[in-house]
């Protein structure tokens, strides 16, 4: 497990959520993801490319995602509101961008965010890339942050694929 990226993501999720969502983030113990048993309703994915390649995924239950998106946007957003997906995607974009500034010595670009909405979906990844799960608790409920990143010289596409989900 390449642990050098854990601290950047922990610092980023705390900074972004405290500044933009106005909630403290209580971070649980990071662990290696070993199976696809984690299911979610909403996931936002941002890819990394360049000297390091992979992705970060922020996942929520539908209720928690609505509460967080509403606090971020400053107006009540239901899951079928057209601005809901935008708000969740932008939060993931900020978490990814804020984390990558602390990828020391690596020149990394981020993709535009993609948001997956589908009850009880899982986000799968290639077996060769270990994913690390960082459980987070906020005043609005739990957020699951997962990332899988490999340091490499040549850029390659983001790694996440989805199962049982609609975009």
């Amino acid at each position, binding site marked *: 497990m390449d642990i050098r990226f854990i601290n950047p993501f922990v610092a980023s999720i705390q900074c972004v959520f405290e500044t933009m969502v106005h909630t403290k983030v209580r971070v649980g113990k990071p662990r290696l993801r070993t199976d696809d048993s984690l299911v979610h309703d909403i996931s936002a994915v941002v890819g990394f490319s360049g000297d390091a390649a992979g992705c970060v995924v922020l996942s929520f239950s539908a209720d928690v995602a609505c509460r967080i998106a509403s606090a971020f946007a400053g107006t009540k957003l239901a899951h079928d509101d057209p601005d809901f997906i935008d708000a969740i995607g932008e939060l993931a974009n900020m978490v990814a961008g804020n984390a990558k500034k602390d990828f020391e010595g690596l020149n990394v670009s981020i993709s*535009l965010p993609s948001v997956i909405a589908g009850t009880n979906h899982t986000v799968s990844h290639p077996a060769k890339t270990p994913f690390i799960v960082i459980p987070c608790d906020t005043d609005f409920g739990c957020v699951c942050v997962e990332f899988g990143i490999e340091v490499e010289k040549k850029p390659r596409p983001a790694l996440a694929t989805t199962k049982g989900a609609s975009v």
Partner: protein
Amino acid sequence: MKILLIDDSKTIRSIQKNALKQIGYEDVAEAADGLEALAAFANERPDLLIVDWNMPNMDGITLVRKIREQDKTVPMIMCTTEAEKQRVMEAIKAGVNDYIVKPFTPDGLNEKISRVIGKATAAT
């Protein structure tokens, strides 16, 4: 004072708009990418642009370079998640007047805007 907000996130544009309203700027136009912004720049003739970096169709750094080809003085602030020093230098070299990293507070954004507008006013 007309301000053009350029960000592919409607949520961010809305947050920026509310922050601007707090300091008395209500004449605001919006664009969701660099291409839309180029058209809006020609039509609206804004006095200040706030530009995101990562956007579809045309990104913010390309937009800044294209605007600077047309207008050497209009103030531009880059507002982006791109926080590395090399990115900041690249943006300044392209022609932005100031730089603010997301996440931002309304006070932080307003401070940058006031500073950039103050400098632009003093220069005229």
